[in-house]
């Protein structure tokens, strides 16, 4: 690999050719302040805060976009550089509604912390913050243009990672601003509500819609029975909200904290993740049976439906391909439907008194819970969805010393989860969980991978594919003898689009595809703690697989509470009750919000 060498503040560094000055400085142990830069995005060089001085050059260089070259002599902390940064910070503050006390982003706002760092408390420049009203039309995301500093991290996220471009940079000059297409309210925009923009916004211009106070109110209401469920990836993210390192697994402490917050029952979305595998696995088998044994015309591939941002993306962008999506509800909605039916019956609680709360790594889940069809229990199946971040805030507000909590387990029923459910949090996890079950149902044997770890499905590539060959199936499944089941995984909707373009043309070679909208899956969800970066997500992913490996049961069909649920209530996968409560349908949104 070709190298270049240069000096930064007198320190010699050698970096790979093509590295930026910012990367070179990092290697030399020097931090350069940045705002528009984000490790997941193509550098834009918009904010100019990262300027540095090159010896002999008349202009300053933006270190995030300038490539290191041999013999450069860079200084990152000269008077000229510091003054330029201070002026730029003053300009940004002039464009910003610095109403920090009331701002939900206060404390994590990068503009705020850099302004402090450079002693920019006030500026003589005139305030020119945008005056348009806050857009809180969406159930998931709140957009406040008065806080926006036009770094375009959101716009770049939405186009580069998501391939959606719900947010665009509109107009020019003094009128430049981030808008939805045609400036529609977010609710009516072609937006998947994934919240990736939120998790990359350096200020409070994009934040999740906060339901913490509604949940507190429900908890304090003696009439209400407040049930909470927590998604797989929350347990590897929550720690970061509470001063722990990325990758900390806090399952037990989280369960204790939820009880201390006052939730009446602490259930686990992992339970319904296992249930999803039972339903979705059998749906796959049903489709394979119809196609291969009964020679019916069945559309392949089948695609996962656990990710509500992905589902909404399909409804907008591929409204004619919706039959590919599994009819299974997501784990959140399955559990929601069961809490106000099965659970209420079993515990003898009036379902109208139940308030169902879920803790999700995701902002699209807020939207999903608000979908009109999500009332199959006869009530709103899930009343409030909080992000991992909002739960972190509740724990901080309550004064709980999180580090010192005892560990505890989830309540029963519907608190048991297997390793297969935990890995739902990582890209490829749903596929791995499904194969662990489907393969065993068909052959009577475990998947042929060491320790059940289907490693070809794991990793960080945006699109991954694998095949698994079925040998010696049980007699009922003899038509599957020798069949190669082709599967693929995509994370980041821009990558999903690559797979979909083949599906649309009828050229897709796959039987089953898993899609998660967010980079690296739910552990990188738009509701997870900030900041996010490939490095942080790698640690969360490692934690997910570690949590899986430590569990006694690692296959969904071995979840004893799930088996009991089928025995007592649902009868069998894809049965009548399942169809009523656990399956759903989709809406063409080509002209709908």
């Amino acid at each position, binding site marked *: 690999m070709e190298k270049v060498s240069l000096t930064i503040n007198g320190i010699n560094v050698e970096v790979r050719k093509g590295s930026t000055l910012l990367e070179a400085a990092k290697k030399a142990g020097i931090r350069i302040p940045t705002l528009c830069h984000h490790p997941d995005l193509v550098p834009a060089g918009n904010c*100019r805060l990262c300027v540095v001085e090159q010896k002999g050059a008349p202009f300053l260089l933006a270190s995030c976009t300038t490539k290191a070259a041999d013999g450069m002599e860079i200084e990152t902390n000269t008077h000229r550089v510091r003054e330029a940064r201070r002026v730029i910070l003053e300009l940004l503050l002039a464009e910003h509604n610095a109403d920090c006390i009331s701002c939900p982003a206060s404390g994590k706002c990068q503009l705020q912390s850099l302004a402090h760092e450079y002693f920019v408390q006030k500026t003589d420049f005139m305030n*020119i913050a945008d005056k348009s009203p806050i857009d809180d039309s969406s159930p998931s995301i709140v957009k406040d243009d008065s806080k926006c500093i036009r770094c375009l991290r959101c716009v770049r996220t939405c186009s580069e990672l998501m391939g959606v471009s719900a947010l665009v940079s509109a107009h*020019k000059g003094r009128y430049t601003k981030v808008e939805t297409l045609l400036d529609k309210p977010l609710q009516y925009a072609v937006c998947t509500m994934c919240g990736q923009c939120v998790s990359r916004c350096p200020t409070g211009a994009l934040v999740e819609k906060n339901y913490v106070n509604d949940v507190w109110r429900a908890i304090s209401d003696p009439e209400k029975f407040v049930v909470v469920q927590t998604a797989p990836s929350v347990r590897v993210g929550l720690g970061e909200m509470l001063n722990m390192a990325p990758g900390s697994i806090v399952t037990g402490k989280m369960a204790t904290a939820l009880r201390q917050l006052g939730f009446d029952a602490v259930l686990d979305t992992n339970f319904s993740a296992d249930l999803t595998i039972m339903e979705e696995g059998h749906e796959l088998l049903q489709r394979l049976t119809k196609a291969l044994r009964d020679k019916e015309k069945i559309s392949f591939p089948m695609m996962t439906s656990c990710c509500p941002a992905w589902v909404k993306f399909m409804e907008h962008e591929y409204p004619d391909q919706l039959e590919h999506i599994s009819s299974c509800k997501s784990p959140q909605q399955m559990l929601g439907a069961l809490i106000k039916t099965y659970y209420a019956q079993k515990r003898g609680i009036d379902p109208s008194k139940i308030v169902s709360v879920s803790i999700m790594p995701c902002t699209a889940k807020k939207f999903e819970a608000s979908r009109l069809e999500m009332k199959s229990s006869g009530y709103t199946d899930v009343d409030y969805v909080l992000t991992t971040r909002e739960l972190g805030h509740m724990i901080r507000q309550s004064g709980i010393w999180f580090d010192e909590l005892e560990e505890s387990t989830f309540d029963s029923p519907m608190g048991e989860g297997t390793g297969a459910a935990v890995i739902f949090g990582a890209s490829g996890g749903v596929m791995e969980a499904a194969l662990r079950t489907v393969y065993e149902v068909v052959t009577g044997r475990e998947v042929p991978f060491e320790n059940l770890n289907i490693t070809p499905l794991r990793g960080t590539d945006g699109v991954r594919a694998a095949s698994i060959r079925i040998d010696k199936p049980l007699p009922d499944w003899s038509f599957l003898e020798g069949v190669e089941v082709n599967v693929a995984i995509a994370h980041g909707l821009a990558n999903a689009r690559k797979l979909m373009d083949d599906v649309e043309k009828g050229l897709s070679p796959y039987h089953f595809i898993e899609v998660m909208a967010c980079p690296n899956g739910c552990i990188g969800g738009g509701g997870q703690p900030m900041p996010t970066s490939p490095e942080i997500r790698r640690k969360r992913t490692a934690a997910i697989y570690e949590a899986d490996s430590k569990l006694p049961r690692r296959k969904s069909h071995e979840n004893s509470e799930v088996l009991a649920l089928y025995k007592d209530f649902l009868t069998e996968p894809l049965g009548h009750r399942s169809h009523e409560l656990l399956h759903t349908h989709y809406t063409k949104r080509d002209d709908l919000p």
Partner: protein
Amino acid sequence: MSQDAEKSTAKLSKVEKKLNLLKKRAHLIFRNIDCVKLFNRILKKTPDEILATITESGLRGRGGAGFPTGMKWKAALEAPGAVKYVICNADEGEPGTFKDRVILERQPDKIIVGMATCAYVTKATEGYIYMRGEYNFMSKEIKACCEKWNDLFEKKDFPFRVSLRLGSGAYICGEETALIESMSGNRGEPRLRPPFPVSEGFNDMPTVVNNVETLAYVTMIMDDGLDFFKSVAKDDSMGGKVFSVSGDAAIKGVFELPLGMTVQEFVDIFGDGDTKAVQVGGFSGLCVPRKHFATTIIGYRGVQTGGSMILYNSTRSMYLVLKNYLEFFQEESCGQCAPCRIGCQQLLLGIEAMRQGTRPLSHIDKLRELVNVMGVASKCKLGMSLANPFNSITEHFFEEICSKW
């Protein structure tokens, strides 16, 4: 001298001035020549010979930046690429510039021969004339001219075709990388440089972007030969330059003159006898006050200009002049980078506030600090060049900026 008396001397000397002007005037761009014959002669030379001629002529970009044309072509020739492009920059967005329009109207053949010469040298096969939307009225003629030449190229087996593209009126789209973005159907925003268009331009392929006038001069160098071109001007400022003269000028319009004149010589020809300042190079150029007329040279050695010369006489408020500039820039900044987007607005609000008394006069120090940061930290030349007009006007006309007048 009373105002009336001054006006009358201005009137009296007008004839003289015209005579002066005629003596100075260069005759290249607007001289009619047989372009088809010339093109045949060009094809008889080797591309290397032509490149050497253009390089030796010292021709520099007439779009404002003054980059040596020979060097640009050489870089595009040497850059690897499956396809190469030549783009004629006819966006002419700088306020006070209208010379490209006249060249397009009167000498379109010379522009296309210039493009074809560039294509011959750089091995480009496609050419585009990117013309500002406001010039749509001449689309028909330009398109017909393209067709005419494409037919000829085809007949001669010369592998090059030209066509017309229209912009939509944003000033920034005259900046060559924003122009390429605009041509590709994207937002007209400057790209990061490097890479430069000569290595990764349109469709990420090597692309030469040259101003209308630059290309017309290429044709004239091919026609008249090196020596004549060099003889037009003195020192390093080779050849002629087409100026757009406007403002409080006794004579206005488009004039081809040698480079290297002083502002005083210029004012002697065009001024109305009461010129207090000349804005050289459009709104983003430098404002030269009367006391510097004699010592300021127009050309690459002195003050560079894309051709815009705006004269101001003593009836003008330089406050309103500067305000007008800043109003233009706060709208025409592409809005991408913070220093330029926010800075332009703050400069305007700042001078207004000083005038109204809502900021003390010392606020000027803050604004100068700002414009100098814009000068070194903006993403493209638009934000960087604002220091030119702002500093020169506020330095020489500060009383006018802050006094109620």
